[in-house]
């Protein structure tokens, strides 16, 4: 009886719409109007808000106005501070990319085009909450007022590097600032964030955790392990997926497969899952605050897919012109997060082009003076550096005899 259906099979391998040489095309990316998506009560059940996993929650419209039920989570002063953080991060990135090219460090990863996500999210968290970030959430530190100089010291592996030169540049760690030590092994942080949140519940504390992952890395088993633990124990954790359309050279379709969206992954675990316009500072903040409220009220985990675009190269080791068309970033339909927040402030009568230019200059000055200070403490190949002795420290709380012998042998 099955004879009828027997024909030769063929393998499906997904490909992006356009490759280098073609013109960028995002016509298949459906962008719902700002203000359209409903804002459910935080105790809503996952199955009752399924639609939010397939739409894009947006607050800022094309005129720069904040519209709809998700608007209004931030004061004017907070909005201006948000713009400042994003500009700082952008200036920081541009200086560090140059520093890497000048050989002052080995490697750098920028956040270009994705600044709103980490910067706005950080403002929805409270003191003592913990992020388990990837390498592309420097905005969490900048919006948390972590010193730029300390970040640069880490990037330069210089004498002021709090991590003693051991870690690859941008693999920061600061417990005090709610930023778990970054791993180069993708996705490992996901179940760890859930465990941190479970500990909070076990200890009857009120702190919550946030996990971070990129679209490509959701393919790792650890992503799914994180979801099942979060679901089973209703852990007070926010599960962020930053969908910037690309892993390195692979487009998001390779990790997403046949699922409509990354947010939809959460639904199978019974986790309320929302998609948000990641280039809309206000929308990110509003959705993050909703998820934070759920976690604090012991209502359990939330999955947030931040829809954005990686405007820069994957890292300083990468050249995207080999795999995606030129100008794709400009064609991205959700625009630039800095310009969109600027336009909103202007529309509100709080801002002007002149003040924006001035703020951009101020933030660049701030970054450059931090850079000067950091460079006075050395860079990767010159000036003061962590000693070779530091290499042997911190493997264990107490150095075992074999390491002591090796250190001696090394003569340091």
């Amino acid at each position, binding site marked *: 009886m099955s004879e009828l259906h027997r024909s030769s099979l063929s393998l499906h391998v997904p490909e992006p719409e356009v490759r280098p040489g073609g013109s960028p095309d995002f016509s298949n990316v459906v962008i719902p109007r700002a203000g359209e998506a409903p804002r459910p009560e935080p105790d809503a059940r996952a199955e009752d808000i399924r639609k939010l996993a397939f739409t894009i929650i947006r607050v800022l419209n094309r005129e720069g106005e904040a519209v709809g039920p998700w608007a209004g989570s931030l004061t004017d002063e907070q909005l201006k501070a948000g713009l400042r953080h994003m500009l700082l991060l952008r200036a920081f990135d541009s200086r560090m990319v140059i520093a890497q090219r000048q050989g002052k460090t080995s490697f750098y990863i920028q956040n270009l085009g994705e600044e709103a996500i980490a910067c706005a999210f950080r403002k929805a968290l409270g003191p003592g909450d913990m992020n388990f970030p990837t390498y592309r959430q420097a905005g969490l530190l900048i919006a948390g007022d972590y010193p730029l100089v300390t970040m640069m010291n880490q990037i330069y592996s210089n004498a002021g590097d709090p991590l003693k*030169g*051991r*870690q690859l540049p941008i693999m920061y760690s600061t417990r005090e600032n709610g930023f778990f030590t970054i791993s180069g092994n993708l996705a490992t942080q996901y179940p760890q964030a859930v465990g941190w949140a479970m500990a909070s519940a076990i200890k009857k504390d009120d702190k919550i955790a946030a996990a971070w992952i990129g679209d490509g890395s959701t393919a790792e088993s650890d992503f799914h392990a994180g979801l099942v633990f979060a679901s089973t124990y209703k852990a007070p954790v926010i599960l962020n997926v930053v969908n910037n359309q690309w*892993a390195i050279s692979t487009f998001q379709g390779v990790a997403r497969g046949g699922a409509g969206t990354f947010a939809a992954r959460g639904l199978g675990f019974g986790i309320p899952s929302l998609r948000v316009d990641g280039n809309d500072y206000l929308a990110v903040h509003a959705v993050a605050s909703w998820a934070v409220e759920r976690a604090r009220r012991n209502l359990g985990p939330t999955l947030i897919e931040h829809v954005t675009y990686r405007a820069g190269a994957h890292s300083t080791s990468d050249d995207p012109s080999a795999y995606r068309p030129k100008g794709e970033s400009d064609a991205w339909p959700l625009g630039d997060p800095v310009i969109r927040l600027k336009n909103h402030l202007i529309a509100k009568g709080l801002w002007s082009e002149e003040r924006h230019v001035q703020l951009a200059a101020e933030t660049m000055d701030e970054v450059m003076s931090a850079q000067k200070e950091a460079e006075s403490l050395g860079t990767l190949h010159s000036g003061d550096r962590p000693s070779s002795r530091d290499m042997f420290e911190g493997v264990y709380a107490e150095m075992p005899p074999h*390491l002591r012998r090796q250190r001696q042998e090394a003569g340091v």
Partner: protein
Amino acid sequence: MARMTMIEAVRDAMDVSMGQDPSVVVFGEDVGYFGGVFRATQGLQEKYGRDRCFDAPISESGIVGAAIGMAANGLRPCVEIQFADYMYPAYDQITQEAARIRYRSNGDFTCPITIRMPTGGGIFGGQTHSQSPEALFTHVSGLKVVIPSNPYDAKGLLISAIEDPDPVIFMEPKRLYNGPFDGHHDRPVTPWSKHDAGEVPAGRYAIPLGKAAKVREGSGLTLLTYGTMVHVALAAAAETGVDAEILDLRTLLPLDLDAIVESVNKTGRCVILHEATLTSGFGGELAALVAQHCFYRLEAPIRRVAGWDTPYPHAQEWAYFPGPARVGQAMLETMEG
């Protein structure tokens, strides 16, 4: 004959294998359209089609697990793990599955897969782009482990690995991709185009797994090594003037014990060198074998030079890396007694 980099040689091996055997498929992260972050698979998708060379989701367990399934269904997958440091999510599939499919099914199912992975440091890659986990594979029954040190060997060994009936871990020292790096990080590296071992014949040739190569004839001591460290050892011998016999093991499993024993019995002294951390490293296995088989011929303690027992650091890379100075010193000490 053409001069090739090690990347080109690896690519050529896959090209030859895919060309002669339609069951060979190649996949991994970024290996399809882009051709791999080190460009080892560049052009293969264009030449052989998307269903024979394709991008995988970022899931190493998925990559190896899928390769095992494909092998069970008649294919011969050659997969790439982007960096050896990222094989850990696949460790279960590699060590508990691939390694034992033949044994546990008594040959009913087999697992002819090759798992390529760039290994080793020297590129300021920090603790997650520099590791040398070969001993984590040699400790597992059922796996073969290959580590070439030059383009000629890389091509011949990779062809053998792909044609092998059992799973082979193929570790490519990434610091050697462009030239024979000898540990002198402050000097430019001679490109493979200026090196004899960069001479790579066209078409198919195979170098059998389990055969070491004598890269330097000598009578003073025997130096056992593989991968990047072959070139470091050559530099150390030249700089110290120690008349070392240097064996490039090329495959750690199966191991060319005959070549090792013959050489150490001739020289009576042995230094073992690898970049991986010292404790429980493959050097321990080698030292035990040499002690057992050459005990009455040894005139000095066997010495091991290896990476320190710390995670691979970023800024202190050259203090960590067992360079020619450390190797030279161990050679001199071994000559003294």
